[in-house]
């Protein structure tokens, strides 16, 4: 026990002495979290609308008004031929072309020949294109029912969907992005420092000196892990506290429970870093291997892209992604106020994962090499 404490003290001294590295592990990640949270926004507004009105009638200009009146669209260009439409789409100057056909007004008064309205949508961003299409369809249909009056709707019953958004009624992205990004940045730093630290000792040969001390293998490793465990705590709670101050992120559930999860969770990235350090020879290799896992974890954790739509094999592999669990637990505790009963399975999984990966790393770790 005393041995571990001595080693922990030595590691802390080394960390605080390194003035160039210290900010990268502490202040910078927190600053980054705050800055990046401001970016968290998928909200689509002010879409640039090109208008190609072949009818030039009162009704068609009313339809155009209906579009530009909605917050969602802003008219930018009048278009009179396909070439111009293509050019503007190519230059990324517009997101959508509204094509109103000739005889729009005439046909809309007839019952049996409905007018055809076309949208040409820039679909490079597929999810955005889907939303644009939904909006454009809804606006046009609304307009047409107004135009024709509701005469034919009366008399038939209608099911009306009423939407309720629970836990985040204002659909504020920042409330969920901030804790998620904090967890990501923290995991990134922890894996990296842990992987690099041990490899560095081996590269510069100081590990040889430790070999002649009475330290045991597990003591050495615990002494390495504990300081980083504290750094992880610092990054996480500093990020969450600032998030509370700046973005007023909700904290419905118990922070104690979140801390319990964090305390156990941290052994997973620590173990992964340690494991990487046992599998590589140089710091450069450690770095690239860490980069590989970190980017996989971050992009597949469900914060930026949905987890449910991944193919089965990817979901299966993703069971090993610690961040996936963290993002889920953040949502459960901070937004939904889930209690110990709901969080317990996550804690258990992290506990088993942590023990497993660390055991694997310690087994691979050869003190003498």
């Amino acid at each position: 026990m005393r041995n571990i404490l001595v080693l922990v003290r030595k590691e802390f001294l080394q960390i605080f002495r390194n003035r160039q590295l210290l900010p990268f592990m502490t202040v910078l990640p927190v600053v980054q979290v705050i800055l990046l949270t401001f970016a968290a926004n998928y909200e689509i507004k002010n879409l640039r609308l090109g208008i190609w009105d072949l009818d030039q009638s009162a009704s068609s200009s009313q339809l155009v008004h209906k579009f530009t009146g909605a917050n969602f669209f802003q008219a930018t260009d009048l278009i009179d031929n396909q070439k111009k439409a293509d050019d503007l789409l190519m230059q990324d100057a517009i997101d959508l072309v509204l094509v109103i056909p000739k005889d729009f007004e005439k046909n809309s008064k007839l019952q049996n020949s409905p007018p055809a309205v076309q949208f040409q949508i820039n679909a490079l961003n597929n999810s955005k294109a889907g939303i644009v299409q939904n909006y454009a369809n809804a606006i046009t249909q609304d307009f047409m029912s107004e135009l024709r009056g509701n005469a034919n709707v009366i008399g038939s019953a209608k099911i009306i969907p009423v939407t309720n958004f629970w836990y985040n009624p204002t659909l504020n992205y920042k409330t969920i992005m901030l804790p998620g990004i904090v967890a990501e940045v923290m995991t990134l730093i922890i894996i990296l420092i842990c992987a690099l630290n041990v490899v560095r000792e081996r590269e510069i040969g100081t590990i040889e000196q430790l070999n002649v001390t009475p330290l045991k293998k597990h003591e050495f490793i615990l002494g390495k892990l504990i300081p980083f465990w504290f750094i992880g705590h610092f990054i996480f709670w500093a990020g969450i506290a600032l998030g509370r101050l700046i973005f007023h992120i909700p904290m419905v559930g118990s922070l104690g429970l979140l801390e319990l999860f964090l305390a156990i969770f941290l052994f997973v990235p620590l173990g992964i870093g340690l494991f990487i350090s046992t599998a590589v020879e140089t710091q450069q290799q450690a770095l690239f291997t860490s980069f590989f896992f970190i980017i996989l974890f971050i992009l597949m954790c469900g914060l930026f892209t949905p987890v449910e739509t991944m193919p089965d094999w990817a979901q299966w592999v993703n069971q090993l992604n610690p961040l996936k669990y963290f993002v889920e637990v953040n949502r459960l505790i901070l937004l939904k106020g889930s209690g110990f009963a709901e969080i317990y399975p996550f804690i258990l999984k992290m506990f088993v994962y942590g023990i497993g990966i660390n055991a694997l790393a310690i087994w691979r770790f050869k003190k003498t090499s």
Partner: protein
Amino acid sequence: MPYFNFSPAERQTKYNLMKKFYAFVQKEFYHIFRDTRTMMILFALPIALVIIFGYALNNDFKNIPIGILNQSKDQTSEKLIHRIVGSGYFVVEQTLEKPQDIPKAFKSGKVKLVVFFPSSFQQDLYHAKKAPVQLIADASDINTAINTTSYLSGIIGEFNNENGRENSGGVQLSSRMIFNQRLLSVYLFIPGVIALILLIISALLTSVTLAREKETGTLELLSISPISPYMIIIGKVIPYLILSLLNSFIIILLGIFVFGLPMVGSVALLILACFVYTVASLSLGILISTRVETQQAAMFASLVSLMMPTMLLSGFIFPIESLPLPLQLISNIIPATHFIILIKSIMIKGAGISLIWKPFFILIAMTAVFILVSIQSLKRNK
């Protein structure tokens, strides 16, 4: 100054210098390619990443787990449920009994949305002619909440329509999806992944290599050689330039042949874009290396300060136009932003140089700035 202006003796020294430089570059090549393990990592990891992300990352909307709470249990509600399931977008994960069960279903995280038919549903439908059905979404996952409610509203609208309950407004709507007819998400993700991987690999490689030379003192050793310090740096970077370019071609070929990314535009322009971007990333790596003392500092500086901002501010994850203004400005000084525009414009849209000279110009200007600042730092260090 043209070569023939020199006297024969001067010409001889120039020639010797070139020969020495060449020998130096050759030595660097040996250094790098000898290390097979690092080579493996450098080529295998990016390929693995692109393949995994190409298949796994998608926002295609399907199989969303939902819960059904039907207190009405009449024919219409059953038909609508059948319709919702039949759409293929949703899977009924849980059937709830009472409204009090909803929070529990959400807290366990099993369902993303609950469709709630109140017991008065049938009565409302036939007497009031308007029957509300509640779509209760778990908005702790906002994108899914927005998508599920809007798809469900669409299905309910169609359902009304088919059963003659609502007039669709009597208009035929058609949409042409330009550049991406099948609305594939790889068009969005692959260019982003390429930009991110190339930047990290190139910047990381150079910054770490140069920092290692500094740390171990071999850079000082080189500085007493007859080759000028700038030549030394260029000589160190050339092998990495070739490595990174090779990497970028492999990744792009993967994108085209495995993930069906189109290649509409000119191949020469694409190669030029890769070259310009790689040089920009490498010079960013040089800049980082001049500012740090140790390998570890170089690594943290490149990975910590480049990875997340590049991912989130380059238009890869969040659309640039929805960023707040100060962040849009930052987005503009991120090389990946411009490279993503270039890749999309050349490969998918088939844009010519007249449309995309701007991102090219910005990348070249950035490279110039990185190099100038690096030279400044090098001079000051002496």
